[in-house]
């Protein structure tokens, strides 16, 4: 709309428009380049990656990096564990959030003010790392899958977003009408509220899912067993601590070849780890603004 008026603008405004576009183009390049580079490097010849031949597009394309990823047992088991924590964890999150947000959204619930305070307080103050660690230990959850699922069963912040949505977008008359028909609050939650909450549940699935998938700290704190560890921990070993198990690379003869392969494996691992979130991203983006806005209403 504004560009069509470009010729009618004053010289200053034209210059300003030009600067805005320039600024955004620079930002676009800065943000997109590292992402494109990693993808290109993951498909390139290992030798080309370490010698810096890869600048933007893949050089001598190959899938050897991905072959190495799918042969690496640690990465595979990490991927499987991550998927498990993601799916089960997010389902627990959503159920808990609905169970908590719904009573707090009904003014018929007499204790709602006090219970709200009970939850909101946990947002501003927490016991901290060590008391939580001792608790998990005492509960016998240390080094079990439960430690990844139960302690973060709900985020108060997301619960409040959900409650705000229920208060603002489900008409009160619906509750009264359903009561006339003999509907109990439990049935109302199941058959009326939940279907009406689909848009906010999409947003919350995104929030919870992303934080589950990307979480590494909980696993570092509570899990020791290799078999239980999510992909993020495996990646930390490979990418940050530089531990690459190269015994599984069959065609490794020269040292430089080995190094090239390990670099390639790193890039491929990064791409594999980002695939689930990025695959959902276009779907997610539609809901992003909505989620942020509902969150902001509460302030």
């Amino acid at each position, binding site marked *: 709309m*504004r560009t069509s008026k470009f010729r009618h603008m004053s010289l*200053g405004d034209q210059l*300003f*428009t030009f600067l*805005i*576009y320039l*600024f*955004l183009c620079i*930002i*676009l390049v800065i*943000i*997109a380049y*590292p992402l494109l*580079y*990693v993808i290109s*490097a993951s498909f390139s010849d290992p030798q080309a990656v370490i010698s*810096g031949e890869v600048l933007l597009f893949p050089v001598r394309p190959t899938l050897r990096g991905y072959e190495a990823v799918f042969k690496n047992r640690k990465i595979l088991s990490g991927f499987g564990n991550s998927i498990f924590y993601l799916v089960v964890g997010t389902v627990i999150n959503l159920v808990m959030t609905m169970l*908590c947000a*719904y*009573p707090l959204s*009904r003014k*018929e619930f*007499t*204790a709602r003010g006090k219970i709200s305070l009970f939850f909101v307080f*946990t947002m*501003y103050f927490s*016991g*901290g*790392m*060590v*008391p*939580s*660690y*001792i*608790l998990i230990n005492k509960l016998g959850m240390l080094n079990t899958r439960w430690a990844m699922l139960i*302690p973060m*069963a*709900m985020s108060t912040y997301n*619960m409040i977003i959900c409650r705000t949505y229920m208060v603002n977008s489900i008409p009160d008359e619906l509750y*009264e009408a359903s009561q*006339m028909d*003999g509907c109990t*609050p*439990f049935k109302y939650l199941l058959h009326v509220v939940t279907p009406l909450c689909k848009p906010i549940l999409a947003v919350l699935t995104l929030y919870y899912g*992303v934080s589950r*998938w*990307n979480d*590494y*700290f909980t696993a570092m*704190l509570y899990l020791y067993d290799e078999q239980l560890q999510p992909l993020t921990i495996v990646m930390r070993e*490979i*990418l940050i601590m530089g531990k690459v198990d190269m015994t599984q690379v069959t065609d490794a003869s020269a040292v430089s070849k080995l190094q090239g392969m390990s670099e390639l494996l790193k890039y491929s691992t990064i791409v594999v*780890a*980002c695939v689930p979130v990025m695959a959902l991203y276009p779907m997610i*983006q539609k809901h992003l*603004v909505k989620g*942020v*806005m509902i969150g*902001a209403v509460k*302030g």
Partner: protein
Amino acid sequence: MANNKKNLPAGKKNKVKNYNWQFWLIIAVPVIYAFIFAYIPMGGIIIAFKDYSIRKGILGSDWVGLKYFIQFLTSTNSVLVIKNTLILGVYTLIVNFPIPILLAIAINEVGNRFFKKTVQMVTYAPYFISVVVLVGMMMQMMDLRSGIINVLLTKIGLNPVNFFGDPGLFRSLYVWSGVWQTAGYSSIIYVAALSGVSPELQEAAIVDGASRVKRILHVDIPAILPTIIIMLIFRCADIVSIGMDKIYLMQNSMNASVSEVISTFVYKVGVVNANFGFSTAAGLFQSVVSFALLVLVNQICKKITETSLW
């Protein structure tokens, strides 16, 4: 409850039952959950005042009063940790706070819908990348020998830079990689606020002959000021509470003198070295200062601008 019944016709009055107990039943699981996983650890804070021994348990251990707090606030190690936390927090605030606002204003000025959507889609994307991947990417691309950045530097005749080995660069790496990851996502809220600026105001400004820069300064920014202030209050409270996720991954022996912050210190002393009391005291110090900052900044903003959280 009572009010509801008054509004209903007499015949239907009895049908509205008191279902309070059902609500309690529904919310019981979340309440128990919050009690166990949020309130019990809060009670566990008393180990900051105790000489905790696993054998005696939390309640049976001996009281030591403020010993650990004094130890934390006086040891040279801790003073360095607090200093690092503050410097990193203030640096993050100064850089990370204004950039999303600038980005949002720029996005709002773009007329071409396709370009606007592209910018938004690309800038939001890094937010969804895990910190492990982010730090891994940085280490790969900034590697002294094979990293693309150093390869390019050598090509144009400059000396390669050891990004992760130079303590002087650590803070900038931490802060600017944070900008790269979150600036787009943080701008969403401002973009949304800007789209709510009334078109009448804009048109009135155009009729009055205001240039685009003037319209931004005198129409757009005042309109989103409340949002800016609310976000500022939250960000100020974050100064001392730097999360350890990313910083722990970026730490190495070479940059330890600038990269050790309260949260990583708490983790190392508490969980790795099992010095529970001392570590809890350090963590408690952090949350109390953070909460105090939140209240303080909120009060200041209330006085000056009449916008506040509560």
